């Protein structure tokens, strides 16, 4: 049995050093970096004082006197930061190995799985081995040993994968240390939060603030199990960090403000582009595809409404009021708003017939149902016509009638005409339909129209400019 400082016992061994112990090592290395930084800053300060005390010819040579030392100190400090970061990266990997890994499970989780199974007697049903039981006559202890062996085999395989995972991180960390500080590895350490939160000041040329952070810097975490990234923080937390001078938090907050502004603008644009017919259909329970068709048929948007003058606005208001009315009355049956809306929705002659509020609600519901049913029926018919006759689409004519255009049937014969198509016209108000053939020339101009509905089939001819020429059988 293995037992770590947290008391999680089981058959699988924890890594000999805990993540925290390894991080302590990193802290020592980091402290050296801090020492080097302090030395460098002291040199710079002393040098500035010395520079202030010299005059004339000595000024220029003195000005560069500390540069080499400072540059060297920078490199040493960066190397120490880097080494500490690599050690922290490995410490995080050890924490995953010991405590947090999910797939494969950590040592703690594997040990817990074993312990729970042990408590459950490895799933054995002792009663089944009693006389008369389903497994009577079998060796309980042998079966139990087999069950434990099966479990251990499975858990050991998972533990092996966990170990391989840690090996990968260990090799990776070792290679990083071999390579020494370089832009790519530093960026990776920053992304994993293994460098301190002010690392972007240590490597100002690398623009680390622009590198996405997969995990908070170790010194900003709530604990070793804090896997949040900057994006996971709420606005208050971001504000705290920003106030502490953490530049990525300031940048993120600024981005969020810009996003909010853009979203707000987009929302306003979207609102303007909302199609009232679509909205009404969706809120009336019409399926999405039919609602979209309705929007195609009545393409007016709210922007059109507000630009289109009072007539159009009143039409839209009417449809919205019908929907809102029920809610308004239910909310407060005798409110002025409800009564005003009643007056708007119901024809004047019918208001006097309303006996009570319940009746009123029924009336309004009926109106809405009838309206929805009509629209639903019309949409179905439209779809039917579109499917049968609208291979090449449809148009809504100014008089409100729909025309569906069939696919062009080309004519093989050489000549002025390219082919013909079937056109179907439907009047949604009356339900009337007409069908005809259009013969088109090679310029796409309709040259002959032949209605199909009557007993007599007349061809109406037009010239290439669309001028009517006459009729022929």
């Amino acid at each position, binding site marked *: 049995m293995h037992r770590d400082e947290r008391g999680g016992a089981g058959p699988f061994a924890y890594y000999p050093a805990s993540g925290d112990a390894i991080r302590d090592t990193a802290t020592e290395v980091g402290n050296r970096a801090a020492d080097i930084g302090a030395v460098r800053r002291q040199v710079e300060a002393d040098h500035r004082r010395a520079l202030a005390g010299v005059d004339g010819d000595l000024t220029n040579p003195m000005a560069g006197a500390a540069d080499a030392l400072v540059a060297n100190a920078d490199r040493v400090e960066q190397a120490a930061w880097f080494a500490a970061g690599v050690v922290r990266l490995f410490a995080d990997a050890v924490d995953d190995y010991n405590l947090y890994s999910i797939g494969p499970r950590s040592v703690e989780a594997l040990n817990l799985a074993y312990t729970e199974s042990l408590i459950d007697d490895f799933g054995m049903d002792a009663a089944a081995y009693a006389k008369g039981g389903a497994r009577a006559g079998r060796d309980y202890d042998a079966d139990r040993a087999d069950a434990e062996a099966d479990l251990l085999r499975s858990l050991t395989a998972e533990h092996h994968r966990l170990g391989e995972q840690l090996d990968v991180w260990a090799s990776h960390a070792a290679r990083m240390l071999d390579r020494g500080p370089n832009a790519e590895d530093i960026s990776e350490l920053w992304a994993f939060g293994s460098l301190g939160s002010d690392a972007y000041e240590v490597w100002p040329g690398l623009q680390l603030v622009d590198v996405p952070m997969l995990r908070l810097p170790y010194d900003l975490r709530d604990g070793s199990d804090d896997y949040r990234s900057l994006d996971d923080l709420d606005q208050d937390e971001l504000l705290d960090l920003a106030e502490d001078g953490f530049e990525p938090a300031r940048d993120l907050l600024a981005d969020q403000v810009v996003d909010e502004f853009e979203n707000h603008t987009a929302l306003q644009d979207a609102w303007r582009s909302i199609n009232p017919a679509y909205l009404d259909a969706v809120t009336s329970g019409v399926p999405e595809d039919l609602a979209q068709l309705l929007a195609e048929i009545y393409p007016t948007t709210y922007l059109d409404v507000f630009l289109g003058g009072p007539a159009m606005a009143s039409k839209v208001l009417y449809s919205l009021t019908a929907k809102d009315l029920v809610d308004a009355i239910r909310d407060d049956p005798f409110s002025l708003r409800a009564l005003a809306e009643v007056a708007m929705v119901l024809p004047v002659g019918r208001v006097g017939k309303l006996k009570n509020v319940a009746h009123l609600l029924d009336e309004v519901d009926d109106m809405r149902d009838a309206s929805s049913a009509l629209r639903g029926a019309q949409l179905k018919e439209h779809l*039917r016509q579109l499917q*049968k006759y609208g291979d090449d689409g449809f148009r809504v004519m100014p008089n409100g009638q729909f025309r569906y255009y*069939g696919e062009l*049937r*080309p*004519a*093989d*014969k050489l*000549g*002025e*005409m390219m*082919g*013909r198509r*079937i056109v179907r016209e439907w009047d949604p108000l009356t*339900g009337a*339909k007409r*069908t005809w*053939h259009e*013969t088109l020339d090679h310029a796409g101009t309709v040259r*002959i129209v*032949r209605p*199909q*509905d009557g007993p007599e*089939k007349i*061809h109406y001819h037009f010239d290439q400019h669309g001028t009517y020429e006459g009729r*022929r*059988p």
Partner: protein
Amino acid sequence: MTPPELPSRDKVRQTFLDVLAGRMSREAAASWADIWVVKSDPDVDDFVVWEALKDLSGIDLRVNATDYLHNEADIHSWLDRVEEAIERDGSDPA
């Protein structure tokens, strides 16, 4: 009056063949197809039959007093489409 029986793939195929063989006039074939094509609610569910009926509906279109818009090659291509569908899915895919 009994409504006409819904056309089948075999029936539209035979109609094309009859027109090509001169056993049926183009006008008669178009009038037959128009029963469904101009109907308020054309209850033809088979897409192949429906397309063939629309082909037949315009088989008698004229470009002038003496000439039809479509020649025999057009009719053969329409017939081919129906025969390919029959070969692929059978006469009655439903």
